[in-house]
């Protein structure tokens, strides 16, 4: 008996006991409990919000970081924009009080609000706006300042007519100019900051805006603390609140672990957790927490099909792809009911987006019929082939959308049912950028996730006209597409553009060039019930200028 004890490796049982205890402890420690509900419905002054975020991006050079999904939160509170774009895409005055354009939308005159200052007291006047427009458009290659990529490339020049009037001219009609001024890249920065070398602009303390908050302290890759600006008095009229912010401070703290972010909000140590898992939202709501899934303005999540790659040069195969995907199942499996199926290849909140869901509705019988008609016969394993070639498709999960791989796996299962053999490739951001390019011969279906502020942006991606991105590999070969895209690009008024946009959406979808999946929610928020009055803008950023703690 004693011998056998000695032979046994010492402490195995004890090790198991301790290990088991650790596992049980871990399971038992999951923070739970309901959030205390109630609180004041009346706005209150003071208080602080702590926002846990998964990244704080890389650089703080304004031009190089303004459109970051993470830093955009901070820029939104430090700076103002010329116009305000709400979550429905409606454009309203902000620093620009009014604007006019000529008949062919090549010249715009902006009338600025007077009395606006940057946080160092420098006036936000016409000269400051011209300095900003120039740096957005051209950047400064000699100083490592990038241009804002999505700023209209038709920009010619701007001039300060007087202290509050700016005249902006373009080389071609640019109807999207005004909405673009509300885009997250178009943040107004003090000319003093713009003149600084890049290394000094990379220090957030030097980046001065005119927004309702200023930087109290920051640490690279760790946190940013903002405090309210007492003399702020130029909020967009579209917001429910005017004057200085109600909150005293907002702290953005980087916490990389999603479970730690959400548990910190559940335990009351923080107020907002960014990007929790969609599958957890129902449970958070049941516990009394607020969740928000605002949609940005832009393209839906879907595939841009390369019509040069066989067999997708066949309209019937492209349409089968569209009808073979069950979008409701994607929403119920990967997301929650907060997500919406696509109605077009634009998100439905984009002005000018029209409902074309019938053109690509899930209909397995129709998809099978189209593939039969195209000569793709099913084999014994249920997969289709034609002339000895299997019906294959490779999906490259978009690394910029956390749920892309899960969605692709479900889509692969759905397409298998209609006879497609689908492979999925998931790369990190670096490898993806190198290997997966839109309109590349090896990428038959490019997974799109992209925001924009004006539907006119679409003209720059559909064909190769004006160095367009040529998403579908068509070049100028589809005359109707060229005509509609050119019409959208050249339209001088929103009214004259609307029918063209509607026809364009119909044409792209009926030709199976784009296979929509679901509308995108790229920014997800879990929020303590103590936080009230948060506003979400057209780019789905949370704005705590209007918020209060109650």
């Amino acid at each position: 008996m004693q011998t056998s004890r000695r032979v046994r490796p010492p402490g195995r049982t004890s090790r198991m006991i301790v290990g088991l205890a650790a596992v049980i402890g871990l399971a038992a420690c999951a923070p739970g409990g309901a959030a205390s509900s109630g609180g004041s419905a009346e706005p209150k002054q003071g208080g602080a919000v702590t926002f846990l975020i998964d990244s704080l991006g890389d650089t703080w050079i304004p031009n190089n970081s303004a459109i970051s999904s993470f830093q955009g939160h901070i820029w939104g509170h430090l700076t103002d924009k010329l116009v305000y774009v709400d979550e429905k895409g409606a454009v309203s005055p902000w620093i620009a009080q009014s604007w006019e354009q000529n008949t062919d939308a090549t010249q715009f005159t902006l009338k600025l609000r007077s009395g606006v200052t940057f946080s160092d007291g420098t006036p936000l006047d016409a000269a400051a706006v011209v300095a900003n427009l120039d740096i957005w458009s051209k950047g400064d290659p000699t100083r490592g300042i990038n241009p804002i990529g999505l700023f209209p490339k038709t920009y010619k020049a701007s001039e300060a007519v007087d202290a509050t009037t700016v005249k902006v001219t373009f080389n071609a009609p640019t109807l999207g100019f005004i909405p673009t001024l509300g885009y997250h890249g178009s943040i107004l920065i003090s000319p003093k900051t713009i003149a600084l070398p890049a290394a000094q602009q990379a220090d957030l303390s030097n980046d001065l805006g005119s927004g309702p908050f200023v930087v109290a302290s920051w640490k690279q890759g760790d946190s940013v603390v903002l405090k309210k600006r007492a003399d702020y008095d130029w909020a967009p009229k579209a917001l429910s609140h005017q004057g200085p912010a109600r909150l005293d401070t907002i702290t953005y703290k980087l916490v990389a672990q999603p479970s730690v972010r959400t548990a910190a909000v559940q335990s009351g140590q923080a107020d907002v957790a960014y990007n929790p898992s969609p599958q957890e939202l129902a449970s958070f709501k049941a516990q009394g927490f607020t969740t928000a899934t605002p949609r940005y303005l832009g393209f839906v999540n879907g595939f841009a099909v390369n019509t040069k790659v066989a067999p997708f040069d066949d309209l019937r195969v492209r349409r089968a792809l569209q009808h073979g995907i069950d979008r409701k199942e994607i929403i119920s499996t990967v997301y929650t009911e907060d997500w919406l199926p696509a109605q077009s290849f634009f998100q439905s909140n984009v002005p000018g987006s029209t409902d074309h869901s019938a053109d690509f509705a899930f209909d397995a019988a129709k998809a099978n019929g189209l593939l039969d008609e195209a000569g793709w016969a099913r084999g014994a394993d249920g997969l289709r082939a034609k002339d000895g070639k299997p019906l294959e498709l490779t999906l490259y999960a978009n690394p910029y959308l956390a749920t892309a791989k899960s969605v692709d796996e479900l889509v692969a299962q759905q397409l298998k049912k209609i006879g497609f053999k689908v492979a999925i490739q998931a790369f990190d951001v670096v490898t993806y950028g190198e290997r997966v390019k839109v309109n590349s011969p090896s990428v038959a279906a490019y997974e799109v996730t992209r925001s924009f502020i004006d539907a006119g942006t679409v003209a720059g991606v559909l064909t190769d006209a004006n160095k367009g991105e040529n998403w579908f590999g068509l070049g100028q070969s589809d005359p109707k597409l060229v005509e509609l895209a050119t019409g959208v690009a050249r339209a001088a008024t929103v009214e004259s553009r609307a029918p063209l946009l509607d026809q364009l959406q119909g044409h792209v979808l009926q030709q199976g060039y784009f296979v929509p999946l679901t509308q995108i929610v790229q920014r997800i928020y879990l929020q303590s019930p103590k936080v009230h009055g948060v506003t979400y803008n057209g780019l789905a950023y949370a704005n705590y200028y209007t918020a209060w703690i109650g």
Partner: protein
Amino acid sequence: MNRDYAKYALRRVLQAVVVILLAYMFTFVVISVLPGDPVTNTLRNPQNGFTEEEITRIVAYYGLDRPVYVQLWSSLSRFVVGDLGVSLRSGLPVTRQVGEVLGSTVVLALSALGVALVLAFGTAFGAQYLPRRVGRLLRAFPSLFLSMPNFVIGLVLINVFAFQLGLFQVIDSEGGLATFFAAVALGIPVSARVTEVLIANLDHEAGEEYASVARSRGLGRTRLFLRHLLKPSSLPVVTVIALTVGELLGGAVITEQIFGRTGIGSLVERSVTTQDLPVLQAIVTLAAIVFVVVNLVADLVYPLLDPRVRLGGTTSAARPEPRDLAEVVAP
């Protein structure tokens, strides 16, 4: 002895310089053979809407379009005069970025080392002198500690002590108690190796004649442990501590992420994922310097601590290796 010692010390210092230079160049080569570069990778995000022409122009500004050997030469010639350059991602000087976070990691690593030593000496003492059943349980600790990943320990500690008991705030990640629990998460796996070596050496020393004599003269357990057994058993621990520096730095990458601390570990993680070469080179060089210096100090101190150690013609003979781990499981 003195002349031998000086020659030995000089040789070790020269070796250290070569190791540091090699580490710097090795990092450059490894990162350079990866596809893409940090600037292009950012700009290619379709959300940015840059044309290929714009990307080419921006990449040229950073000199990333030059041949790799030209880039290496210019980087190396800056390095030898102490210029670490500017981060390709943040645009901030590398010295500032590393300097800002260094203190946090030093505090974490030293605290973790402290936790590891307390655990190791406590466990080793208990394994020797507590009742056999408890002793056996304690002897299982090193393998248990080694098999517990620090991210699991970290998440359990955060759940229990921050969220359940409210002892510390996750957002105040540099606070005293938050640092202590991060040090515990990092220190537990690190303590395993120290404990194993200590237990093995204590077992060995306890079986020596002088210990039996001391016991027969009626010397108490604690006195025997502290006065006679601890010093000879601890000498090999000096070697192990020198080797744990790497573990501490490696473990800090995960621990800092879990506890939301901003230190060298989280900077490494960010720089690797973004291929921020100048920052990575600085950190790898710093790690090489720390590793080389700690080992150098251990090597140079050892002959002074233990007169039995003689300096031979080869440097590696200076420090005895820690006792074989197999001896731990056969008490």
